[in-house]
């Protein structure tokens, strides 16, 4: 297990964007808070319980969206870059199995990158709230603690990281497979075969199962992991009630997707064992 620490560290050395991207977003938000207009704050009814939740929710959502995009790019590149520059031959000269290599990339994409973003979102939201509170002489900072909003958000984001990792495993597996296989342009190849398959299905069979399947996976996460909506105005309604934990983990789609994703990861490992060149 010890060498996983090194494998993951290696990824942080190579991909400095893992922390630079959230740091830049964070810096941008802090600059806006420092120098942006603050008049609108006075219109917000700070005593209402939803302000803190909405604010934390929006900050977190921004970081999570950027993080997901970056994770996808990372997955498409991680097994391609070292084949392209031939450094794969150096990594393969060390006693690290291809299984461990592939799994370490998956762990970085699904857990390490989201956790870094999560911490960045937390720190940023606290700093921005503090700055705005001081500048606008308001108590938005206080609103964060209203009804345990901040703590609930922590639980919510950890839930998102865990469930998104399971839900999007087939997407991650597909990206890894493309990354381990293609000779060039992994981003293009991640889309092209699916597009061709979609067109073939549409013109020759007249159906659109594939589109439904992919659309359901990409867009179906929120519906699978959460109850319809979170009534943030209601103090008694908590993040716990919003999370559909039972529903998510008993959903067949969750586990079928996870199984397909795991199969793709296994296929990636086999490709990685056989392919040392672009």
């Amino acid at each position, binding site marked *: 297990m*010890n060498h996983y620490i*090194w494998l993951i560290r290696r990824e942080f050395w190579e991909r400095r964007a893992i922390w630079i991207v959230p740091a830049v977003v964070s810096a941008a938000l802090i600059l806006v808070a420092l120098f942006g207009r603050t008049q609108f704050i006075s219109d917000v009814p700070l005593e209402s319980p939803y302000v803190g939740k909405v604010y934390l929710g929006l900050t977190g959502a921004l970081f999570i969206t950027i993080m997901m995009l970056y994770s996808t790019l990372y997955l498409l590149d991680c097994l391609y870059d070292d084949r392209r*520059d031939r*450094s*794969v*031959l*150096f990594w*393969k000269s060390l*006693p690290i199995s291809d299984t461990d290599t592939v799994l370490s990339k998956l762990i970085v994409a699904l857990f390490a990158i989201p956790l870094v973003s999560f911490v960045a979102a937390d720190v940023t939201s606290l700093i921005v709230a503090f700055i705005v509170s001081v500048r606008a002489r308001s108590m938005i900072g206080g609103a964060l603690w209203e009804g345990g909003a901040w703590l609930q958000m922590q639980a919510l984001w950890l839930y998102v990281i865990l469930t998104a990792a399971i839900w999007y495993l087939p997407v991650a597996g597909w990206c890894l497979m493309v990354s381990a296989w293609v000779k060039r342009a992994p981003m293009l190849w991640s889309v092209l075969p699916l597009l061709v398959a979609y067109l073939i299905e549409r013109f020759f069979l007249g159906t659109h199962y594939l589109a439904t399947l992919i659309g359901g996976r990409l867009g179906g996460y929120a519906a699978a992991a959460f109850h319809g909506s979170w009534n943030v105005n209601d103090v008694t309604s908590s993040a716990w009630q919003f999370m559909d934990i039972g529903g998510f983990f008993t959903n067949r789609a969750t586990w079928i997707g996870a199984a397909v994703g795991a199969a793709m990861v296994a296929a990636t490992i086999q490709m990685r064992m056989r392919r*040392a060149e672009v």
Partner: protein
Amino acid sequence: MPKKNEIPMAPLIEARNLSKRYGSHVALNNANLSIEAGRIVGLIGPNGAGKTSALRAMLGLTTYEGELRVLGREPFRERTALMNDACFIADVAVLPSWLRVDQAIDYVAGVHPRFRRDRALGFLARTQITGKRRMRELSKGMKTQVHLALTMAIDAKLLVLDEPTLGLDILARRSFYDALVNDYMDESRTIVITTHQVEEVENLLTDAIFIDRGRIVLDLSLEDIAQRFLAVSVAADKLEAARALKPFHERHVLGKTVLYFEAMKREQLAEFGELHTPSIADLFVAKLSGGAS
């Protein structure tokens, strides 16, 4: 009763009918070879002869047909375990550009149980290279030094070098081989080198394996080569008589003709002219081109 240490050891590398195909192209065609522990073996062949395919197979980087054992293991199935005892430098350009020298050392120290950090640092201390430099900032020669420092600090039984000095200038090449000879070689280690600059490694090798079009055409120790092959510089008037003894290769140099013979007695040839043992490079050309050149 033979003493225990007289029982011959199993070869370090043994290949039986080793084949590798890429589609319709046959890179290795039923190659047989065996490499004993403690040897320094040159795997020599023209471009596309199958050298790299053979090395890739030995290092578990590719699938193959036939039987192959390296350090008693099946390379493709057991690459991870094999890499505890074997290491390789596949090409000088393979250290990633973003990696810092100190990170490279930390990483290898972290994942390789037989890596000795003090040795790597000791080797690097003799160079101009500092730990905070990234590979992209280093010259090709310096990168090779880093790679060699990492590799030589691993207590491995087998070291495989695939065209290790490709693209290096003569100074860097010389210092590479000097370091290899002075700091790495000892009896417990086996080295396999492929290169097309045969002259450069000739005085290093204990064995030479010639490979051509996927087949092993010669696999001998240097002592055996000296016993088995002779080159004779023959004056023009004795040429026909010498040719009657069926040389396997002829070469014309500066008005003289050099004939190459296999398995002939020195006495038989001495009358035709000056005898010498062909260099590996000459023998390689002679063996692979056959006939007159």
